[in-house]
């Protein structure tokens, strides 16, 4: 049981780390939100499962925390992305796909 719990904790920490690396490496804010949301959602669920295996008497509270994370995390990301789009932040595009238009514009 201890080993299994440690594995879940390790997986959670790893995905959260990947999310952080994504935050640094991604080219624009929308991609960063994507990397952050997904990694943190699965990472925290995995951490919660790990904690649940270590302390089975906490399962009901952990379940509620997990549900709230699943519902609110993507919602918050969508709202931030929507606000960004409305305030005029353009999504980043690969340079070569834009080159012809940019050339013709001068």
């Amino acid at each position, binding site marked *: 049981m201890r080993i299994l719990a440690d594995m879940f904790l390790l997986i959670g920490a790893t995905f959260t780390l*990947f999310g952080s690396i994504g935050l640094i490496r991604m080219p*624009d804010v929308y991609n960063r*939100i994507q990397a952050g949301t*997904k990694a943190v959602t699965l990472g925290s669920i995995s951490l919660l499962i790990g904690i649940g295996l270590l302390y089975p008497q906490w399962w009901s509270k952990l379940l*509620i925390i997990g549900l709230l994370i699943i519902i609110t995390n*993507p*919602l918050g990301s969508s709202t931030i992305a929507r606000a960004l789009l409305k305030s005029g932040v353009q*999504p980043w595009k690969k340079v070569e796909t834009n080159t012809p238009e940019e050339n013709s514009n001068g």
Partner: protein
Amino acid sequence: MATKPETEEGSGLADGLFLFVVVLLFWMLLTGSLDPSEIITGAVVALVVTLTSRPHLSIYSGVRLTPMAILPIINYLGVFFWELILANIDMARRVLSPSLPVRPAVVEVRTDLRSPLGRLALANSITLTPGTLTVDVQDQTLLVHWVDAPPDIDIENATRKITTKFERHLKGFLK
């Protein structure tokens, strides 16, 4: 599935009952005990919450509460968690590869779900699936930011690729 005519009062009562049960379940999970005094306190709190949020209850009218809805819910949860894991592996692969293989674009997809709750569930699911992030919801159209969009994809193909797998199951228990 037969559609029954919805009167204003009847649906309001059902929505209120739904919220009451959800809040009471929440309370019981939080306290973690089946002590009668705890449950009675929870019932009082749930009643107060339900009565206070009466003006906003109409959002729950999108829920289909029938025994038939259990199978789609299980299917949906299965698809959801599977896609969540796939999304993370996909994102980790992109983030860790030196060339950073992304071709982001904003695409539109269409949905048949009409209730606000249904669209909310769909938008959340899209955000947690591989490479897609819901940016905006306007009536039947969802604006989706896609990390790896094929170069010239049209709305039909994007809809098929992004929403169909969730919508199929969501339709079972949400309108």
